[in-house]
């Protein structure tokens, strides 16, 4: 798996962000493992601590296994004004997880994130690469049921 990703990028530090994105996307648990960090360190010839520093700086990366679907609910002021806090509470209730936690079936992880730039449709969330706007409790429940159904 790593070989395939590494082949896409020359071994230069500037490609670190891309490589980490690809590795995380290729991981069914949506995270970057210690082993992956080691491999990247060998390929790019940069230190493990540098990679770890980058990895933990950006909010899109995770060093811990996550659910198949990563829900990122925006908590920035525009969404907050439109009730994102209530949406979050309800979301956590229906999934029975805390923020940052993963459901026992491994389907969902709930995270908070900064502004997604879709404030016109606040409150919004992203599930993996898809954006959902104008959220209401009913809409959120529907989306979750739909994804569960697909799984």
């Amino acid at each position, binding site marked *: 798996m790593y070989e395939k990703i590494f082949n896409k990028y020359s071994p230069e530090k500037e490609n670190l962000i891309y490589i980490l994105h690809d590795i995380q996307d290729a991981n069914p648990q949506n995270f970057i493992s210690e082993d992956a960090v080691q491999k990247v360190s060998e390929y790019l010839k940069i*230190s*493990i*601590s*540098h*990679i*770890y*520093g980058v990895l933990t*700086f950006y909010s899109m990366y995770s*060093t811990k296994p996550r659910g198949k679907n990563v829900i990122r609910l925006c908590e920035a002021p525009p969404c907050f004004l439109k009730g994102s806090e209530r949406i979050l509470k309800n979301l956590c209730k229906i999934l029975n997880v805390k923020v940052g936690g993963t459901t026992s079936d491994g389907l969902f992880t709930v995270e908070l994130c900064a502004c997604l730039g879709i404030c016109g449709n606040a409150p919004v969330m992203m599930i993996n690469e898809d954006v959902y706007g104008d959220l209401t409790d009913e809409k959120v429940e529907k989306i979750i049921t739909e994804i569960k159904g697909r799984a």
Partner: protein
Amino acid sequence: MIVYLNGKAYKAKPDETVLQLALRNGIYIPHLCYHEKTGKAAKCRACVVEVEGMPGLKTSCNLPVSDGMYVTINSEKVLQAQRVVVDLALSSGQHDCLSCEQNGDCELQDAAYYLGIERPSFQLYDDKYEMDDSSEFIRVDRSKCINCGRCVEGCNYTVVNEVLNFGNRGFETKIVFDGDLPMGTSACVQCGECVQLCPVGCLIDKRAIGSGRVWELEKVETVCPYCGVGCRFEVHIDRKREKIVRVTGVEDSPTNNGMLCVKGRYGFDFVNSEERLTSPLIKENGKFKEASWDEAISLVASKLSSLKKEFGSDSIAGLASAKVTNEENFVFQKLIRKEVGTNNIDHCARL
């Protein structure tokens, strides 16, 4: 080039910063992250000053001097900002000077003292970090870390061991070893550069803990006894016990710029070792017996003289040492060449 500090004119060097100029002239500006080796990080923001013609406050550590510059260090505006900044740093951790090993040699303590801060205004620290005692020679107490970044800079750019970095972001930022491993299991080689650079009590020499307050110790410069690089270091001695407590690298030494290795910095136990010989020994019937210096010296002298007489000078050989001084090697070869009368002298240069 003339620069005014608090209204007084000082001669400045063209490539220095305002902070360097001030420190060079014995004027204190609080600073926590600046270090001559790791440079102008401008992270702590404690070194802010006012400059005529420039809006707001400027950090003096990364402010180049210019001719006629008029810098104010002691205005209420400056001091008030510095007070908040240092207060924030003090509030971010558990800075308990009474029990801290760095007491008396702490740059945060110095800054707080200068600004008249008695205790932190806020308590931001919530026991989030455990003490990392896993390393053989170094203790990491992140509750005292102010994220100045000197250790990270030193590890990556000075000794280039590339073990330390910052992990996480914002208030959660902390120093990490490799992928956040305990220091002792990381790839750290314990050169101690980070300990030497740490301005507070976060990274400390484990074995010096409880061995004496900074002001009780005397410091003498000398040269490392291990490999041939000749790193210059300072030995910290507890005079009451005539004991070496710690060793630190000399920053302005052209050979090592303050750097040392694990042996040079921590491998000094042999000097105060219990196993040291304190009396000449003479072997009798296969066993060593303590003897006086007179006895031992005359035995050696008479033995060498008689063997020389009986078997000739070349029956005697001497091994000089790669670990003693030039002067001692000089007199040793003089002894072998002049008094014994042979060139049978060598040492382990090749071994």
